[in-house]
């Protein structure tokens, strides 16, 4: 991790009470949930991270304390730097502030977080499901959501599965 990124990390750790870490040369910063909008604003304006490359979430299901980690990947194009910001969220229906006012492309990413993980995003311009049908129940990418697969048909259970398989209404 080169020195410029080191300096940025120290500065962010002080101002936002964050905890930096490093793995295989990639810097990561754990920021408290309510500081995320300020941190994103600082990253873009002071440190020149112009692009929000990726925004996703990880579900540590059985462990309720920080149940979700929302992971932001920022990219500083002029200085060729990448930084990962993590936000820990607790409980099954967590809330999160939207940064789509700072990075416009966070709009769809946050809609996907809501759709796939059920993270309610506050003051998001248009929070709807993006990938699943509107009336879909449940949040698919959560660890406690079953993969929802169809039972594999063998010769011994072929008949009963055939009955249960929906037929096209002609």
């Amino acid at each position, binding site marked *: 991790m080169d020195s410029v990124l080191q300096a940025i990390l120290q500065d962010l750790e002080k101002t936002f009470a964050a905890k930096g870490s490093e793995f295989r040369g990639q810097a990561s910063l754990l920021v408290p949930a309510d500081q995320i909008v300020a941190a994103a604003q600082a990253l873009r304006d002071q440190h020149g991270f112009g692009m929000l490359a990726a925004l996703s979430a990880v579900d540590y299901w059985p462990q309720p304390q920080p149940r979700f980690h929302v992971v932001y990947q920022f990219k500083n194009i002029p200085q060729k730097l990448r930084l990962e910001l993590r936000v820990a969220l607790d409980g099954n229906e967590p809330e999160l502030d939207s940064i789509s006012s700072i990075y416009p492309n966070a709009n769809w990413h946050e809609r996907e977080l809501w759709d796939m993980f059920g993270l309610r995003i506050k003051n998001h311009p248009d929070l709807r499901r993006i*990938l*699943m049908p509107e009336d879909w129940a449940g949040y698919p990418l959560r660890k406690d959501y079953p993969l929802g697969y169809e039972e594999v048909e063998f010769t011994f259970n072929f008949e009963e599965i055939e009955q249960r398989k929906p037929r096209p209404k*002609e």
Partner: protein
Amino acid sequence: MGIESKLGNLGIVTTTLEGVVNWSRTGAMWPMLFGLACCAIEMMGSQAPDYDMSRFGMELMRASPRQSDLMIVAGRLSRKMAPVLRRLYDQMPAPKWVVSMGDCASCGGVYNNYAIVQGVDEIVPVDVYVAGCPPRPEALIHGIMTLHEKVRGEKVRDWA
């Protein structure tokens, strides 16, 4: 095909009504442009000059269901897309057939999960299943040839 086969060459060809109608239906069966995913690229590949599906009367991929006779479901059908597929199938005029191209359309394929309809035959009645992920253009054309044989075998009773 009719009596001239017994009485020798009468200079005219006699056939049955089924023979003529089925021949005309297999002659120009226009598929509907309904590519979903990776199989759609292979379907475009089989429409392109190297494999040229138009040799079998499939010259045009009609965009609207009103002018197409065959629906090739090329790709994986997601739960959100299922009602759309059913609506398109309903909006096709009467003599219509369905070819389910690829494993994902035929049985859900590698995706045995919440998002993919496990086989298009849950939504629309399928005539020919083409296996492969994605099936080679030759496999798709072979599937269409089997469909043509099936259509040639149809009887008047089926149309009633």
